[in-house]
């Protein structure tokens, strides 16, 4: 009886470790680039539910969020992955900036403290990603060092990168500037909020992760 039980346990463990590792796709970028908006769009498209809260105040996402088993289908192809939404990476966080947005002092200080921890966690998770989508606000200067450092790091770790020029629905969007800043990468322009050009986005996603 004990032998049979031991065999059963062994089989279960073997099956668990034999299972193919789920592909991890990470959303990285500076704060307020639209990472969570894109994560929500992907989750709504394929799971019918949102992933996280969005806000105009920077550092709304302060914890790593993972949505598992997303199956994207295109023609006869299928891509299954876990989507990892990360806090925006920044080199500075000043709680006084949150005060200007109307938060109370204690809320602002708490948000700043959580945001610094979020950046640390996001960097720690870099190594475990299989593919990274770098989400940039295409109305902002793409040459910021944070963008260059993130992308340079991913290249050094041989992690495939797709750059998303988000917020193309805004008049100030300059997708050409994003493209010229990172000529060696594929760049796709979308509006995650309005759902514009998502077809091309999924096409590129299949190309890089499929």
């Amino acid at each position, binding site marked *: 009886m004990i032998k049979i039980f031991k065999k059963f346990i062994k089989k279960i463990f073997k099956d668990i470790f034999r299972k193919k590792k789920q592909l991890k796709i990470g959303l990285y970028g500076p704060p307020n680039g639209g990472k969570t908006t894109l994560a929500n769009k992907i989750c709504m498209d394929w799971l019918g539910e949102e992933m996280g809260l969005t806000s105009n105040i920077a550092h709304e996402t302060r914890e790593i969020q993972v949505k598992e088993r997303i199956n994207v289908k295109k023609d006869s192809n299928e891509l299954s992955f876990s989507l990892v939404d990360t806090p925006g990476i920044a080199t500075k966080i000043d709680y006084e900036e949150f005060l200007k947005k109307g938060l109370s002092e204690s809320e602002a200080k708490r948000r700043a403290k959580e945001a610094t921890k979020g950046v640390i966690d996001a960097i*720690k998770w870099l190594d475990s990603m299989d593919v990274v989508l770098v989400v940039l606000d295409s109305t902002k200067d793409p040459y910021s060092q944070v963008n260059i*450092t993130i992308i*340079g790091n991913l*290249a*050094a770790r041989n992690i495939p990168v797709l750059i998303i020029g988000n917020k193309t629905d805004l008049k100030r969007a300059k997708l050409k500037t994003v493209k010229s800043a990172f000529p060696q990468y594929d760049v796709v322009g979308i509006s995650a909020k309005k759902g514009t050009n998502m077809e091309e986005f999924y096409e590129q996603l299949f190309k890089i992760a499929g």
Partner: protein
Amino acid sequence: MGLTLQFVPYAEIETLSSLGRIRKLLNAVKEDKIVLLEGRLRKEEETELIKTTMEEINAEFKGIELAVIYPESRNFAFFRKMKQQFINMLLGDRQGLTIVGPASVVKEIKKDPNKIQLFTSDTKKRAKPKKSKDKGK
């Protein structure tokens, strides 16, 4: 308030560990100095610098502004690129310049391929003067 620029030749960080290099830069920045480092850190060191900065943020230290100016190697011939990469691997990346400043002093570093602009708290105010409403006049 005057600005203090501290030039750090690559030779000064060459023999230091990654942690030592980051410590050296952050210690100077925490003394409100803008550091001009000859060359650049390794890519993983740049990320580690951001991570360490986040760990040390408090009421006084708000973080850093960081920029790396690097010569454009896109148009270099293949062998020149390879030669440069080999030299970088052996001797460290002495090309270009890394600028690190305290976020409380340096508000923004704007960079495009041809120029770099460093805005301090004061220059930002000068760049966008407030319109005066002289109703009484």
